[in-house]
């Protein structure tokens, strides 16, 4: 059992001379055998956080731990000996493969880099491709000859090559058709169940996260605003932002349209250049009170296992 734990992560970029606080004080963990969904609108900082958690980007502040071993230090340096434990799968598989290298060679690269011989690597590549449900003959083909779904499986095989404890998947099914999407999600579910891999699943699509995550973390403008077991969060979303997200996913019900009176979240996802004072959600919040404009809410626990950053989080329970 391994746990990847990010603590107190801050990360700012500069855009036209102004600081963009992409990740603004976040704790998040993923353990073996669980799928954690990190969900939020575009630009909320979820990909930046994901890259930091795999050691591909450095935080300005904060640390990342693997159990009791420090993986990313406060100065941003990464413990290379631990790198193989955490692997990243990107959204667009075509962009993440070298177009001139066969799929098999790309999948075997991490093994060769770790000193595995040519024969051994080849054998292992075949095993890995089979594990992700690909015909091993695809090993000798170029990436451009595979479909998006096939290549995403190959990308997962490549990520599995160093035998990581944790996979971080950044929008792995965003560009896929529903049928292919279900296959990739099932592959992740199988890896979790059969191999006990822990998965951080980053997505803007609450519907997809809803389908596979054991725990969810909802991110808004660089912060986690609500987190807890999927069950609990969906049974009673306490943060107004989580609620708005939930109410905006079409459910397949035809009454969605008739509910013209459902309050939609106004406005667009804001930019992290101008983070509002007090509660950063207050300009879009349908229930904001005066206090929200000045007082920044922190995550507070709600038993059994939920945490919510909202001054009015109790009231969701009172009236449900």
């Amino acid at each position, binding site marked *: 059992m391994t746990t990847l734990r990010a603590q107190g992560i801050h990360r700012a970029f500069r855009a036209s001379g102004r600081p963009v606080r992409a990740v603004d004080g976040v704790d998040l963990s993923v353990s073996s055998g669980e799928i954690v969904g990190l969900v939020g*609108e575009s630009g909320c900082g979820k990909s930046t956080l994901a890259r930091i958690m795999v050691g591909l980007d450095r935080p300005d502040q904060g640390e990342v731990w693997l159990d009791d071993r420090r993986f990313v230090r406060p100065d941003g340096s990464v413990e290379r000996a631990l790198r193989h434990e955490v692997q990243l799968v990107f959204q667009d598989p075509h962009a993440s493969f070298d177009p001139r290298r066969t799929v098999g060679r790309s999948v075997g690269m991490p093994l060769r880099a770790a000193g595995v011989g040519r024969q051994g690597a080849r054998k292992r590549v075949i095993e890995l491709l089979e594990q992700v449900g690909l015909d091993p003959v695809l090993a000798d083909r170029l990436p451009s000859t595979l479909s998006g779904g096939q290549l995403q499986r190959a990308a997962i095989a490549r990520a599995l090559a160093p035998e990581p404890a944790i996979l971080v998947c950044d929008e792995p099914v965003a560009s896929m058709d529903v049928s292919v999407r279900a296959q990739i999600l099932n592959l992740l579910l199988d890896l979790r169940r059969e191999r006990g891999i822990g998965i951080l699943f980053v997505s803007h699509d609450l519907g997809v996260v809803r389908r596979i995550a054991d725990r969810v973390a909802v991110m808004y403008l660089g912060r986690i605003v609500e987190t807890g077991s999927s069950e609990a969060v969906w049974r009673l979303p306490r943060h107004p932002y989580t609620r708005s997200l939930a*109410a905006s996913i079409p459910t*397949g019900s035809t009454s969605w349209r008739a509910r*013209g009176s459902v*309050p939609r979240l106004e406005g667009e996802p804001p930019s992290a250049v101008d983070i509002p004072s007090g509660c950063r959600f207050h300009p879009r919040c349908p229930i904001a009170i005066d*206090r929200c404009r000045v007082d920044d809410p922190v995550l507070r626990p709600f038993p059994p296992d939920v945490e919510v950053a909202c001054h009015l989080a109790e009231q969701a329970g009172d*009236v449900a």
Partner: protein
Amino acid sequence: MAAGGSATAGGPTTSARPDHAALEVRDLRVRYRSIDDHGPDVLAVDGIDLTMDRGEVLSLVGESGSGKSATLLALAGLLPANASVSGSVRLQGHDILALPERARARVRGRGIGMVFQDPGGSLTPVLTVGSLIDEVLLVHRGLQGAAARAETEALLARCGVGDPARRAQAYPHQLSGGLRQRVAIAAALAAGPEVILADEPTTALDATVQAQVLDLLVGLVADEGVALVLVTHDLAVAAAVADRIAVMYAGRIAEERPAGELMERPGHPYTVALRAAALPFRPRDRDGEGIQERLPELRGRMAAAGGTGCSFAPRCPLATDHCRLVAPPLEPFEGGLVACWRAGELAEWPGVESPEVEPEVPLAAIEPQAVGWPGQGA
């Protein structure tokens, strides 16, 4: 206002309620010739019929490559040069495919508004969004100068663009994705069309913005009485906004029925699979205990259009030898049309009556309203 310019046989077309449908498509076929002359031709649309009334939303749903976009592009006259079209498309009483080119462009320009997935793509980057809409108003409604600008601002306001006078001065790239899509919808409305064709208009948007834009489109249909054809790969989106859903498979319509009935009791095995894949909720065991370990999958790939037999047969759990030999015709079925030899038996098939996918949380429980949040201020 219905601008039926040149009157057709059967009297004036400018009456308040023209007797023709907003859009009538018969036996539409689209074929792409292979560009390099080596590959085979692709039959993208293989004979489809559609009828739309004003104030109606029809959603075309299906997997990638099923011919949804080709259908829309054919209606809008935007197919690339290597495509050929046949069939008839009646718009405002004209069979536009039979009209000479200039007349066809005029009827289309006035009668059809088009909205794409990437709003950037349909908005000229070098024009401010105001001048872009002014232009449409000049060409199709003869409005100029201050009158045009006033109408442009009214259109933007109608489409939920706040501060329209200022936004009209902006270039498309200066606006967020959601605002650009609102502008694109305003531009599509400018000529006063009877039909709006929208190809995945919310696919690139965040969930909360998608909901806003869908609300806008549905509101326009109700208020302006336009007919909306909404193309989407997401059956849940279709169910949310459409009156009728047409499920496309390999260039044909597999099922076309009122949205509620199709979602509740699909008549085609492909619709059953799409529905299982589309719904956002986590599948549960039959007896409601514990969570299933896997999601419903539809294996294999869509067959090319134009083969023998039912094109869904290779992936269909109900396929028979007959299915593989003879393509099923589109026939009346419970309020609509279904192309499946076994549509009548589908009701007894496990997975149809009791969907594997069930919402665990009644949505009402998560609407701020239903939960009764306390009033604002305090």
